[in-house]
C-alpha cells in the first residue's frame, strides 16, 4: 500500500521509541540507497544474536540494504543461523517449519498476485544450505519447476551451524563434521546447475567480497522474479565457528574461496537479460 503503513499517526511521533522514529525518518522506506552508505541510514536490520564476526550476518545487512522496494517485500526464512538476523528487521518475516520456505512462498506469492494483481509484492526466501538443498530440496526444486515468481537466496555456510556443526549436502567432499565423522563421502551439490535446469530465469553465485556487486545481484534477482519467474542466488557465507575461521580472517577466506570455487557467476535467460537491461536503464534515467 505504499508508505502509509510505515507512517506514524499524527500526534504519536513523540510517543514512539526512538528506533521507530529513526526508521521512519532515516530508514530505507521509499528510497534507493547505496549499500556502501549503510552506516549513514537507519538500517532495516537491528541488533541480532548472530555470532560476532559472522559473515552471514554481514551478508544479511547487505541483503536488506539492497531491497528494491523494502516496504513491499516479504522475507521468508527457516531454521538455521540466518534467521537470527533476518527476523530482526523492519520487513515482514515468515518463519515456518524447517525446509518449507519455497512451498510457503509459493502459496504466499500466489495469494498476493490474486489480491494485488497490479501491485509490486516482492517475495524473497533467504535460507541455508540445509533448508534448501537437504530437507526442503523437493519444495525448492518444485517451486522452480512451477516457475513461481519469487527469489531464493541460499546462504551457504556448508554446515548445519545452528544445530552444532553437522554435515550438509553443501559441505565440500572430505570435510570432517559431525554426522560425517569419517569425512563427507560425496561432492558438494551443484545448486547453480540445478537451478538453471529447473527453470530459474536468473542464477548467480558469489562470495560476498564486493558489497556493490552483491546489491546489484540481489536487485536483479528480485526484479527478474517480479516479472518472469524464479531466480536463485547461491552465496558463500562462511561459518567461522564450525570451520574455525578466525574473525580477522573471514574476509580473506571469502576472497580465497572466490578464487577457488566461488568465483562470481551470473547467468540469465535472454528474456531476463532484455528485461533487466530495460529496467536498469529506466532506473539510471530516474536517477539523473
Amino acid at each position, binding site marked *: *500500500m505504499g508508505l502509509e*503503513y*510505515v507512517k506514524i499517526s499524527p500526534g504519536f511521533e513523540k510517543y514512539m521509541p526512538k528506533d521507530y522514529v529513526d526508521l521512519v525518518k532515516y530508514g530505507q*522506506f521509499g528510497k534507493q540507497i547505496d549499500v556502501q552508505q549503510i552506516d549513514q541510514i537507519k538500517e532495516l536490520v537491528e541488533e541480532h544474536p548472530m555470532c560476532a564476526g559472522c559473515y552471514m550476518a554481514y551478508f544479511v545487512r547487505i541483503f536488506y540494504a539492497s531491497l528494491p522496494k523494502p*516496504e*513491499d*517485500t*516479504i522475507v521468508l526464512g527457516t531454521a538455521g543461523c540466518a*534467521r537470527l538476523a533476518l*527476523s530482526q*528487521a*523492519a*520487513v*515482514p*518475516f*515468515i*518463519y*515456518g*517449519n524447517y525446509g*518449507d520456505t519455497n*512451498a*510457503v*512462498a*509459493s*502459496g*504466499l*506469492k*500466489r*495469494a*498476493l*498476485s*490474486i*489480491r*494485488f494483481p497490479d501491485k509490486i*509484492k516482492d517475495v524473497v526466501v533467504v535460507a541455508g544450505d540445509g533448508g534448501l538443498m537437504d530437507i526442503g530440496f*523437493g*519444495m525448492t*526444486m*518444485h517451486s522452480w519447476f*512451477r516457475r513461481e515468481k519469487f527469489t531464493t537466496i541460499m546462504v551457504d555456510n556448508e554446515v548445519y551451524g545452528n544445530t552444532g556443526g553437522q554435515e550438509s549436502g553443501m559441505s565440500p567432499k572430505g570435510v570432517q563434521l559431525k554426522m560425517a565423522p569419517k569425512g563427507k563421502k560425496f561432492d558438494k551439490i551443484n545448486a547453480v546447475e540445478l537451478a538453471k535446469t529447473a527453470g530459474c530465469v536468473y542464477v548467480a553465485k558469489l562470495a560476498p567480497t564486493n558489497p556493490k556487486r552483491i546489491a546489484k545481484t540481489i536487485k536483479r534477482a528480485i526484479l527478474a522474479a517480479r516479472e518472469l519467474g524464479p531466480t536463485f542466488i547461491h552465496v558463500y557465507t562462511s561459518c567461522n565457528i564450525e570451520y574455525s575461521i578466525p574473525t580477522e580472517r573471514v574476509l580473506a577466506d571469502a576472497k580465497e574461496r572466490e578464487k577457488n570455487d566461488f568465483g562470481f557467476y551470473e547467468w540469465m535467460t535472454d528474456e531476463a537479460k532484455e528485461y533487466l537491461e530495460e529496467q536498469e536503464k529506466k532506473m539510471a534515467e530516474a536517477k539523473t
Partner: protein
Amino acid sequence: MPEQKVVETDYLLLEAPRERKFITGSQAMAEAVKRANVDIAIAYPITPQSETMHLVGDLWAQGYLKDYYRAEEEYGAMSAIAGAVRGGARAFTATSGPGLLRGLEAIASWPGHRIPAVLGVLTRVVNAPLSIQPDNVEISYLMNCGMVVLHAENQQDVFDFTLASFAISEMVDVYLPIAVCTEGFFVTHAKGYVNMTPEDMKLPPRDPYKAPVPPTDCEIPPARIQRDAPVQKSNFMSYLIHQVWQQEVWSSNMRAMKYIYKYLNGPIEVINPDAEVFVAASGCAAAQAREAVRYAQMEGLNVGLLKIKSIVPFPSKEVRETLKNAKAIIVPEHNIVGWLAKEIKANIPNSDNVIGRPRVYGGMTLPVELIMDEIYAALGIKKDKTVLV
C-alpha cells in the same frame, strides 16, 4: 459458469433456498467449495481424496477459483496453504490417510500460525500394510493439534460442514483451520441426497484485515512483523509465551462452539433423548447407528442416537447431559483404537457404561447387525447371533 453473487454469510448458510441433488460425497465437498468464494486450492493426489480435488480443479478451470495447482507432495501442499492464507487468500485442500500424516507437521502448525484454512479429510487406512480402504484412525492424529475437527455422517453433512467451515474458521475469535472429515468411499464415492444452496450465490470474500493477526501482505501495520517468532527463553521472550499461545489456540477452539450451534444446529444430534440405551457415533458410523436405532425402535426397544458432529471442540457438556441416564452407551467405530469411545469415557461420570463395540477397521464395512447385537446384549435380550429384520 453462472455469474455468482455474494450474499450474507447468515443468509447463505441459514436461509437461502435449497435444491435437492443426488450426488457423491466428493461432489458435495466440491459443491460447497464452489459456493465458498475460495481463492486458491492446492491439490496432491491420493485415493480416495483425489476425486474431490479433481472436481475442485474443474471449478478453477470454470472460473470459480482464482488459482489451483498440483503440489509436489502433501508437506509442500500444506505449507503452501499456510503461505496463501498468510497472504490473505481463502484456501482449500483435501487429503487422505498417509497423505494427512505426510502433511501433519505443517497441518499441526496451522493453529499456532493462526491459519484459517479448510481441510477435507477423506479417511483411508494408515499404512502399513498399504490399503486404500476407509478407516478413520487418522482423525485421532488431528485431535490434539488445536484445529477444529468436524466429522460428517453423509453427503449432506459434507456439504453443510464444508461450507460453514469457511465462515467459522475466519471468525475473528476463532481463526483456526477446520478439518471436515468423512469416510473415504463409504461417503466420498457413494451418492446421497444433498439439499444445496443456489449455485449462483457465494459467501462474501475473505477479509484478511478482520483478523486477530495481521496478514503478511505489506498493507497493514506493523511493518516489522513476524507473526510467530521462534520462542527462545530469555529476557526478550517470557517463559510463559508458548504456554499462553497454546492457551489462545485452545481458547479459540472453544470459541468455535457458538458458531457450530449457529450454523450446524449444534455439535450433537439426539434421537429419543429419554432412551435407556444410546448408540453414540460420529461420521458414517452415525449413519449405521441411525439405522440401528430405527430398527430397535421398530422392535419397541428404548434406544436412542447420539450423533457427535464436532470432535474438536468436543461437546463435553452436551454429551454428559444426553447420556446422564443411559444404562449403556454403545460406540461403533471405524478404527481399532476407539478414539471416540475414549473421548466419551473421559467426559462422562459413568464411563463403565460405555461399550466400545462394534469396531471395524482396515476398511471393513460396519454392518448394522453388529450394532443390533450390542443393543440386545445391553438390554439383556437373548437373540440368535444373526439378526434378520
